[in-house]
């Protein structure tokens, strides 16, 4: 069964498009990455799913139930972690988590304790005194404490240090292995690559592509920089998969998509001072891969 399904979901803010005609489904037990640059409509989609805002047209269901009509009921089984965490600042972490738990009518104390310990979150501090990263941790615990069936994450890793990110990803994998479905919104391709089974890509409110991580990686561009000892010519790089080639004196830069062996053989023929292969940022992928 599809855990989340949207049909032609559209939201306008006045004349500004939030998202348009977004049809998407999240299968049970998968981790779906939802990526796109800032302002692409990721948060709008999530807010529509959580009925914080209402669609201009189209509809969405979660667990097969309409998100507006059955909002309070389906939210019992949803854990949501916002991108920017805003909580009642006069409360202590413990009080906030207990307040959060009080909405679910079940004992969440063990999970609060376990997840807080894993993230090294001090429960006795005032929310007001927490750093950005620590507020984010409160957000994680708050989103997971009721053992939800669907976890919705909106750019969850900002502010977390690398070790915490690792713990957090480990936690998500464990939740996923326990059968939880995860909807993971992000603008960082590499973190989506680490954890997701499938990826949906949005740009300017449109769903551009949805495919398995495997395909995406195969089709993925690399950004290649070379510093050569001798001058090279454009013709040397006329190879399928090379695009956006720029040669300035001894500096060569291009995007490459295809078999890495082909390009490594080509590079091996050139006398190099230095070279670098990196992941292009999302903007570049959108510009070149998705036109």
């Amino acid at each position, binding site marked *: 069964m599809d855990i989340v399904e949207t049909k032609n979901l559209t939201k306008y*803010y006045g004349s500004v498009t939030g998202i348009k005609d977004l049809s998407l489904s999240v299968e049970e037990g998968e981790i779906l990455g939802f990526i796109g640059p800032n302002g692409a409509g990721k948060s709008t989609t999530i*807010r529509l799913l*959580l*009925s*914080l*805002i*209402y669609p201009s047209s189209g509809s969405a269901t979660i667990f097969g139930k309409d998100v507006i009509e059955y*909002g*309070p*009921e389906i*939210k*019992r089984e*949803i854990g*949501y972690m*916002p991108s*920017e965490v*805003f*909580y*009642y*600042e*006069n409360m202590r972490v413990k009080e906030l988590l207990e*307040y*959060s738990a*009080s*909405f*679910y009518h079940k004992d969440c104390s063990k999970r609060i304790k376990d997840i807080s310990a894993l993230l090294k979150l001090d429960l006795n501090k005032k929310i007001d005194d927490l750093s950005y990263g620590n507020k984010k941790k409160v957000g994680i615990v*708050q989103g997971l404490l009721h053992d939800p069936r669907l976890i919705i994450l909106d750019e969850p890793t900002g502010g977390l240090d690398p070790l915490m990110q690792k713990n957090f990803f480990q936690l998500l994998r464990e939740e996923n292995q326990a059968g939880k479905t995860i909807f993971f919104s992000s603008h960082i391709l590499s973190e989506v690559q680490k954890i997701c089974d499938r990826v949906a890509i949005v740009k300017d409110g449109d769903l551009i592509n949805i495919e398995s991580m495997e395909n995406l990686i195969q089709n993925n561009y690399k950004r290649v920089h070379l510093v050569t000892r001798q001058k090279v010519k454009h013709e040397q790089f006329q190879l399928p998969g090379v695009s956006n080639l720029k040669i300035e004196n001894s500096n060569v830069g291009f995007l490459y998509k295809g078999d890495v062996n082909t390009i490594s053989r080509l590079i091996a023929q050139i006398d190099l001072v230095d070279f670098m292969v990196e992941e292009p940022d999302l903007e570049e992928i959108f510009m070149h891969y998705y036109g």
Partner: protein
Amino acid sequence: MNIYLKELRDYRKSLIFWSLAIVAFLLSAMSKYQGYAKSGTSINDFVSSMPAGIGAVLGFKGLDLQSAGGFFAMCVLYLAVMLGVHAVLLGSGIISKEETDKTIEFLCTKPASRTHILFFKLLAALTAIMILNLVTLVSSIVTLPLFSEGPSINGDILFLMPSVFFIQLWFLLIGFLFATVARRPRWAGMTSASVLLATFIISAVVDISGKVSFLKYATPFKYFDAKTIYAEHAYDIWYIVFTLVAAAIMIAGSRYAYQKKDFSV
């Protein structure tokens, strides 16, 4: 119920502050009354030498200020304004703070419907205005005998305080309605407080000028005018009925507006 308890806890400090302000007001007002009473000056002579407009704005037009009851009836106008301000700020704030502090995202992603959230917030706000009304009632009953040697006026106090409650109810719900309708949350507090000020001015204008008495229908301060209630020793039942009907409409309106609202944090 968790929302109700949390709100009451959040407003505990503010309630204590308002209670202290009211006790301070009562003490200072009644000590003035005692001063006049002891010195033997007739307050009535003094105030009758003032222009009628001032008497109307200050709320003592037509009252016998020499008697403790008459003096208290004048004080009730001030109490009504104070408690009205409290109610209007509470009504708008209890809704709009979730949006200004951006905690609405937390609250609305919990398994609680918007109607549920509104209901318990309204219940908490009603509890708070009732507590403040009771604090005012009790501190009046305790304070007045300290400054007045005449017969007890507890009966008058008990009879007049419900008028203050109805005024509180009006402004609580006006603030509540404005905050649920408002697209920008900060707008609600300012606007609903302006409504309070405007209706207060209207009620003073009605007292000053005999020509615009039809305006008395436009202000809750006139529906529950302490000096009239004190003089006639009766409430106008139609104003009470109207208030309750208006309250029901404002609550339904708030619910409708809140249900439709987009929360874009």
